[in-house]
């Protein structure tokens, strides 16, 4: 029995994902070397691997992660389903207790000290929440489409860890849970919800970004004009997608009667009108809210969103990050040869801004390879999720996908100056054991489930 189990594991395990995982870990460690290397230290492997250095410590985290991944693969796949709520509950209690146990690190109350190590429980809440959502959404007869109740329960499951993480002053990590709406979208939440959410974020960001440039004698600002254009475009797209003749006729509500057609169309016009009015309302209220703040508070919001150049504060990070990446050129400056990173011009370069090291030392080629590896991982996760025989596996797979996607999108986008500065780690690259273990749990639990798909089909 044990023999067949092992053989089936080797045969059924998704080795492509494992390969990408190992490749990213390897590149990640090289980047940590580049970011943590102190000028003038020896460059040989043994010195870099010495436990007294951060590079050596990261090697420990990588080793233990692979070990943990292996252990997870050897576990019975059914325990995740069985203990999903228990794990979730335990995690919530841990998150609740964290601020009281934590010691303050740069204003964050998310780190618990165990011996000489510090752990960040928030990093482990991701897989726990994913398991709970998968468990709930795979209950018999669960349907998300058309069920407000189920949508609210799902959102609540997400909201608990979010709220607790916000209490730890880790807003960036809390925002990650919004990514789970991608999973909900796949599971039947109307696309318009997702669309509305993305549109709302776009209005606020665009509106604030251009609010300084006044036009028409101060009556309007450029932000108003861009937001108005966005609303027009969005409404146009919605009209095309939902109110086309064929779209209505293909919809499940359509009964074939002419009256039904008109009723559906009128109802959809009404929703789109509501969307447009809501959009205008949101933009105006956001604008009014910001205008009522003192000027330095407005600036602070803009700087936090990465919307304003601030060479001495947050903006400084982004400028130095861009210089680091831009100076890499096609082939980069070579392993341990980056000057921006080596001489500490980029703040937080071994954690949130780790991608700078890739850009500077490995150049366009290395950075593009990393991006393609992440793309491969994400697309593979989609494929693996879709081939799950159970809703539990599929939902969990989509949770994994959503979380990874959000991290890659925000972290690299931030370093490239395309996204607001939100402090979240880049999976497998950023320094630290907690995030690496957290991502490994997330990924390997899914790989374990995927390896069991054949048995599940029997």
């Amino acid at each position, binding site marked *: 029995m044990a023999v067949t189990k092992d053989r089936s594991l080797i045969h059924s395990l998704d080795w492509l994902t494992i390969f990408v995982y190992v490749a990213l870990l390897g590149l990640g460690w090289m980047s940590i070397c580049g970011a943590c290397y102190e000028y003038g230290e020896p460059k040989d492997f043994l010195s870099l691997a010495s436990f007294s250095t951060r590079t050596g410590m990261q090697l420990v985290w990588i080793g233990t992660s692979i070990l943990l991944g292996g252990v997870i693969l050897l576990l019975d796949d059914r325990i995740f389903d069985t203990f999903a709520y228990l794990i979730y509950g335990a995690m919530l209690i841990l998150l609740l207790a964290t601020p009281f146990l934590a010691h303050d690190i740069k204003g964050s109350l998310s780190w618990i000290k165990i011996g000489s190590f510090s752990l960040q429980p928030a990093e482990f809440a991701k897989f726990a929440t994913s398991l709970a959502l998968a468990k709930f959404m795979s209950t018999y007869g669960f349907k998300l489409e058309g069920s407000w109740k189920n949508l609210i329960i799902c959102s609540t499951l997400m909201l608990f860890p979010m709220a607790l993480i916000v209490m730890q002053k880790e807003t960036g990590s809390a925002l990650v849970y919004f990514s789970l709406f991608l999973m909900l979208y796949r599971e039947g939440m109307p696309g318009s919800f997702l669309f509305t959410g993305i549109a709302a974020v776009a209005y606020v960001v665009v509106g604030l970004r251009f609010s300084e440039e006044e036009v028409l004698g101060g009556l309007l600002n450029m932000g108003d004009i861009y937001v108005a254009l966005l609303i027009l475009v969005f409404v146009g797209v919605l009209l095309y997608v939902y109110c086309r003749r064929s779209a209505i006729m293909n919809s499940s509500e359509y009964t074939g009667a002419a009256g039904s057609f008109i009723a559906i169309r009128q109802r959809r016009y009404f929703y789109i009108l509501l969307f447009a009015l809501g959009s205008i309302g949101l933009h105006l209220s956001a604008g009014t809210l910001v205008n009522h703040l003192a000027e330095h508070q407005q600036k602070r919001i803009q700087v936090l969103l990465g919307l304003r150049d601030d060479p001495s504060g947050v903006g400084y990070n982004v400028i130095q990050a861009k210089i680091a990446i831009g100076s890499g050129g096609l082939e980069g400056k070579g392993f341990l040869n980056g000057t921006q990173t080596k001489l500490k011009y980029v703040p937080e370069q071994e954690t949130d801004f780790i991608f700078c090291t890739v850009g500077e030392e490995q150049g366009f080629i290395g950075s593009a390879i990393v991006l*393609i590896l992440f793309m491969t991982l994400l697309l593979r996760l989609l494929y693996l999720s879709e081939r799950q025989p159970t809703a539990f596996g599929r939902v969990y797979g989509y949770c994994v996908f959503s979380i990874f996607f959000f991290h890659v999108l925000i972290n690299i986008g931030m370093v490239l100056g395309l996204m607001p500065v939100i402090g979240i780690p880049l999976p497998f690259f950023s320094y630290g054991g907690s995030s690496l273990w957290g991502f490994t749990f997330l990924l390997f639990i899914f790989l374990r489930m995927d390896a069991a798909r054949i048995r599940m089909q029997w």
Partner: protein
Amino acid sequence: MENPHLSYRSYVLGAAVVLIIVIYVLRLFSLQLSSDDYKLRADSNAFMRRIQFPARGAITDRNGKLLVYNQPAYDIMVVMKEQVGVDTMDLCNSLGITRDWYDRRMAEIKDKYRNPGYSPNTPQLFMSQLSVKEFSQFQEKLFRFPGFYTQKRSIRQYTGPYAAHILGDVGEVNPADIEADDYYRSGDYIGTQGIERSYERQLRGVKGSEILLRDVQGRIKGRYQDGRFDQQPIPGKNLTLSIDLDLQKLGERLMQGKLGSIVAIEPSTGEILCMVSSPSFDPRQMVGRQRGKKHQELSRDPMKPLLNRAIMGLFPPGSTFKTSQALTFLQEGIITPQTAYPCSHGFHFKGLTVGCHGHGSPLPLIPAIGTSCNGYFCWGLYHMLGNRTKYPTVQDAMTCWKNHMVAMGFGYQLGVDLPGEKRGLIPNAAYYDKAYKGSWNGLTVISISIGQGEVLLTPLQIANLCATIANRGWFITPHVVKAIQDEEIDSLYTTRRHTLVSPVHYQTVVEGMQRAVEGGTCHSARVPWYITCGKTGTAQNRGHDHSAFMGFAPKDNPKIAVAVYVENGGWGATYGVPLGALIMEQYINGHLSPESEKKAEIFANKTINYGGYER
């Protein structure tokens, strides 16, 4: 459980992933490949070029005796961030500075406007050019002052108190220097006077640089690529001067207490053997931190010790100039050696009188030079300027005269390799046309024939006239640098310049100058070892007459030509002749005879009182 109708949404999400990755790759492309801008910004962040200063060339005299060398000096540097908590009073006492000075200096360092390169993490100059002694005293206490460091620099030092005007000095570059030559950066040193200035390019060497890596807090982390792109400084070239230190010492000793100049030239090479300008100063006092104060003190001295009289002092040459007149008249055929002019205690004509001392009359040329007869040369010039068969107008005659003078090196800078040389004054026709509104003749300007009137020469020009006579008709532009390490000297200083007068006539004048020593005005210059030729000069001026002399020896194959000019020294024979004779003896014999040494001591102790004169 299954919802296959929603599986299309996996493609929507997949498309979103691909779209985002494509956007990010395009963004990477635009950041990394479309311009060098970020690369340059990264370089300017991280690279700091540190200049390495080359050692300035050393200077020796013609016999290899060291004159100028480099001495270590120390700057005290401070790192503001590290010096917190230092006992300020203790520091001030250790450095011998006041609390007030300390506060002012610290404020200057922190003033970003005055000190644009300021960073609290990098060493800033606190105090410059401490001597080795001051430094070693401070070094013992340095441990008490964290944040204070010392940095080695080199300053010029001099072996003796001699030749200050020739050697010149070195100072910080001014904005004009930086503008003129982009080699210089603020704070660099540049030769400001003397050969330090005229041979700046050879002496300064080539600065090296090292590329250092600087971290975000301005701290130096090491050398870029282990120094692969560093450039070593190339030391400056050593100079060998034509100056003979012993001769220079003697000259300066003889001129003590007198104003004036002694210039000696080796006729065959144009090399200047000594160049004394009195009063002088001790160049050793002009280094280090006291330089500014000392310089100011000297520049306020009414005797103008900073002025190099040998090339900047303009004097009437007096009778020494008569030799040039004799040459001109002979060449122009105005006189022959046999032509005799009358002189009855001077030149008397049409109511004009130029006085002369008592001697036989009429005299031919050689005794006229020997006795320095004024009348003879007045007649000569009168006949030259009045000769309408040879020269259509007086202006033409004057132009011809001027051309002779210019060819002998008068009226323009000779081109000595020292800065600030004056050109002197040789009047031309236009000058007199303007001064006398076109109405003038030989009589009007007669005093130029005896080296008075408008004519002004530098002592160097007088010495060069003597060297030209010693060479019988040519000279090499006088210069003080004999050789440059690994480099030829300028061809200007190796090329013969011929005058417009034939050597035959020079020989006649040489005979006249020999006569002056052997039975004329310069008889005290006579020595038993070799035949000396000389010519005195007594230049009238508002005060007491200037005493001048020029002479060369030996008569054949001359080794030295000397000009002595002692302001308000009286007769040429009073100071000029004996001083010139001592200089020639020292150089030719290599020492002074015991009697000459006594004589030298007497003259060294003679002082002329200048107090009464407005200068």
